[in-house]
């Protein structure tokens, strides 16, 4: 299952879908400036699934939401960095990427739900309780596929129909659709939308999509609602799908079904997926690569298999050891002492040094950058630096015991 679906990822020339560079997102609070995301960089390659894991408050959801510029400003500020995004055309023609943090709002509307789609954590809250499933899924087609809706029309469709296909109908125009000259084209449009919505729902293995289309979110179970969300997200065949803890609100048996479904659809559509989760064992099953986040920074990033078998960063090691597994005796779970540090106006220091058992003085005054060193994947820890690189004596560096994580 962990077999990468995409081009070989070690090959750095593999085409990228998105590239995050030094992303900084801050929030103004009464206590000061909260550095929720503080210099995060990573790439998402074509067709791969990247897992972004971390504990509550580490900035993983904020990172994901910034792709679609969903952070409320104020109190939030995009304090720096770029998110480059290559659409399918740009990748094929070798075109230049767009910076998602800079594009004008109108262009952002074109990208949202069309080129980049998102599945939210709680399907109960993310779906509109006042609209039927049909209306909610159809909106994606009206917004982004209005030309498709008018496909196969003999000649130019009447202007009110064109407006209806783009959800730009005037206030009383719906009345005109009830009477002869426009009635049959309006029906035809409606049928076309029904077909597309039905197909989108059927793709997520919803039994009897026609029946589901007329129901409202409260009539569906959690797993079914999440399927509707997935149908909505994949309706336009996006280049990048962002899944923000899509199964946290679901039971384990349903969770497994939804994960299978996302994986299957990803392979079929060749979509790249950015997968946000706090559940390491889940991420391990479905992601090609994972990035571990801690306190607004990426601690380490690499192929899933490598990260799990040989975690480099002390935080990753602690996190993996804290999951109850077969190897543990009762009362002997590994523990990471202390709590996540305050992110308000942080000092230039390793974010993990207060909880790290290997930390030295150096970690308390110098921030380790996320760099790939020869033979190692990128990791933000001084333990892997050479003394010359930092210009300090060798005994000042933390000594990580590489064999016994």
């Amino acid at each position, binding site marked *: *299952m*962990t077999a990468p679906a995409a081009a070989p990822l070690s090959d750095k020339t593999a085409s990228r879908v998105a590239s995050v560079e030094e992303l900084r997102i801050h929030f103004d609070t009464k206590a000061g400036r909260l550095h929720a995301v503080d210099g995060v960089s990573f790439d998402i390659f074509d067709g791969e699934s990247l897992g972004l894991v971390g*504990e*509550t408050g580490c900035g993983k959801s904020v990172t994901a939401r910034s792709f679609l510029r969903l952070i409320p400003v104020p109190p939030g500020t995009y304090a720096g960095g770029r998110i480059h995004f290559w659409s399918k055309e740009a990748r094929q023609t070798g075109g230049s990427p767009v910076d998602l943090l800079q594009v004008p709002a109108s262009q952002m509307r074109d990208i949202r739900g069309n080129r980049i789609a998102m599945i939210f954590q709680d399907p109960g809250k993310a779906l509109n309780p006042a609209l039927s499933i049909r209306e909610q899924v159809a909106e994606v087609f009206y917004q982004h596929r209005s030309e498709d809706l008018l496909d196969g029309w003999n000649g130019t469709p009447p202007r009110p129909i064109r407006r209806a296909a783009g959800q730009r109908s005037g206030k009383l125009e719906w009345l005109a659709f009830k009477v002869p000259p426009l009635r049959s084209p309006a029906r035809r449009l409606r049928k076309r939308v029904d077909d597309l919505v039905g197909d989108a729902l059927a793709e997520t293995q919803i*039994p*009897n999509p*026609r*029946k589901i289309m007329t129901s409202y979110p409260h009539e569906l*179970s959690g*797993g*079914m609602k999440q399927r509707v969300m997935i149908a909505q997200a994949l309706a336009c065949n996006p280049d990048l799908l962002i899944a923000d803890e899509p199964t946290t609100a679901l*039971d*384990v*048996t*349903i*969770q*497994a*079904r*939804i*994960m*299978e479904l996302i994986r299957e659809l990803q392979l079929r559509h060749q979509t790249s997926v950015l997968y946000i989760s*706090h559940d*390491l*064992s889940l991420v*391990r*099953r479905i992601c090609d690569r994972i990035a571990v986040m801690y306190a607004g920074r990426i601690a380490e990033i690499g192929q899933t298999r490598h990260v799990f078998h040989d975690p480099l960063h002390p935080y990753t090691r*602690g*996190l993996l050891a*804290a*999951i*109850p*597994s*077969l190897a*543990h*005796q*009762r*009362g*002997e*779970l*590994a*523990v*990471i*002492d202390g*709590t996540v540090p305050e992110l308000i106006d942080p000092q230039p220091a390793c974010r993990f040094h207060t909880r790290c058992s290997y930390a030295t003085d150096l970690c308390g005054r110098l921030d380790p950058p996320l760099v790939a060193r020869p033979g190692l994947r990128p990791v933000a820890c001084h333990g892997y630096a050479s003394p010359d690189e930092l210009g300090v004596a060798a005994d000042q560096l933390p000594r990580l015991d590489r064999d016994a994580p």
Partner: protein
Amino acid sequence: MTNLRDDPVGAATRAEERPVITLRGVKKYFPVREGVLQQIVGHVRAVDGVSFEIRQGQTLGLVGESGCGKTTLGRCIAGLTDTTGGGIYFRLSEADRMFLDEMDAVGQDRQTSEQQAKVESIERAHRIDRLKGETWRTYRRNCQFVFQDAFSSLNPRHLVKDIVGRPLRVYKEASGTDLTERVVELLESVGLGRQHLYRYPHQFSGGQRQRISIARALALDPEFIVLDEPTSALDVSVQSQILNLLHKLQQDRGLTYLFITHDLGVVRLMSDEIVVMYVGEVMERAGAQELFASPRHPYTEALLAANPDLLEGDEEAEMRGLEGTVPDPARPPRGCKFHTRCPVATPRCGWEVDDAVAWLSDNSTILEGLGGVERSSDFESVLRFAEPGTAAEAESLLASAAIPDAMRAALVELDQDGPELRIRFEEVDRVRLEDVDVGHMTSCILHTSQADLDSRP
């Protein structure tokens, strides 16, 4: 406490321990009210006949998906809600339990007056809803509760000192400086300290709040604690701290735990014995190691398959989920409650009219044509359609390969007569929990002797 992880069966040591809590056929129904007069039209069977015992110094893990009744059962045991039927007994001896079981088998009418008097005296002394005065107070102080959400279970307007000291004050255990010292001791035992005495709950992180909850539960030095998903709101690194703390307290104080959770990894680590619940019933019950090594119920297998990290060996194993949804507990399925989603269901698993209607309603033309369902029992009914054509379509659907094989085999009568379609399923009894091994019980008929399985497909 004996370490049962090294004891393959575990039953030998377990049987010697005294039961602290005994459940005998516990039921909890919630009424469903409808209409202007709020008449009761049915019951949600949250807990439907659950029996097990929790022994001194042991941890019993209660697992199941959301809505399976595990929290309700925990609340019943702690005396926070009353039960609809059955009994929860505190410190019921093995002999008394056997006597009560025997008397139930005899039936109330045929008991002699001495026997009735004995039943009465046992119930008065041990059954928690019949405890009065001092014995009830003894039960309440010996049975404490740690809630799932440490954010809403601590009063935001009270200081930690008042929260943790409240039980001591109520039971007149301590006052004044003595009380403060006792509270400090309790806080220290959960890894907090004197500096936290005069703070409010909002000043603590999730893990620390859960520690305060645990300190409060420990205040009266109870024998038994119900832990209702104590770590599900916490991050992994904090969860491991709390689990280690709970284990240490159990060792130091000889506590008995009922550990309610949906996380199988946690429950395996913490429990000696595990009870798997589904729609208000116990599906399987076994020693922790035994359950994971050889599950004897398809539902347990499905839970394990959904999280393959828990199984030994192949770490690349695929994760498998279940189709369908948890049935409505107001109209639970007949026979085995899991048969609607079971991958290995047999014709004897309790297929009924509702299952047929559920399959038919996936087809929109049939659903629209279906006028009414007249049922003479859960297993037999007449479906009335608007047109004979739809009825014929429904008949062919029920006879086709789209329907599970087991369900088709259970369908003993399928007659179309004009717009009417008569269907009748084989009637089956409710499945019972049966012993399949020492200390291992399951309700799956594939593993027990409850049904003649010659008719298996």
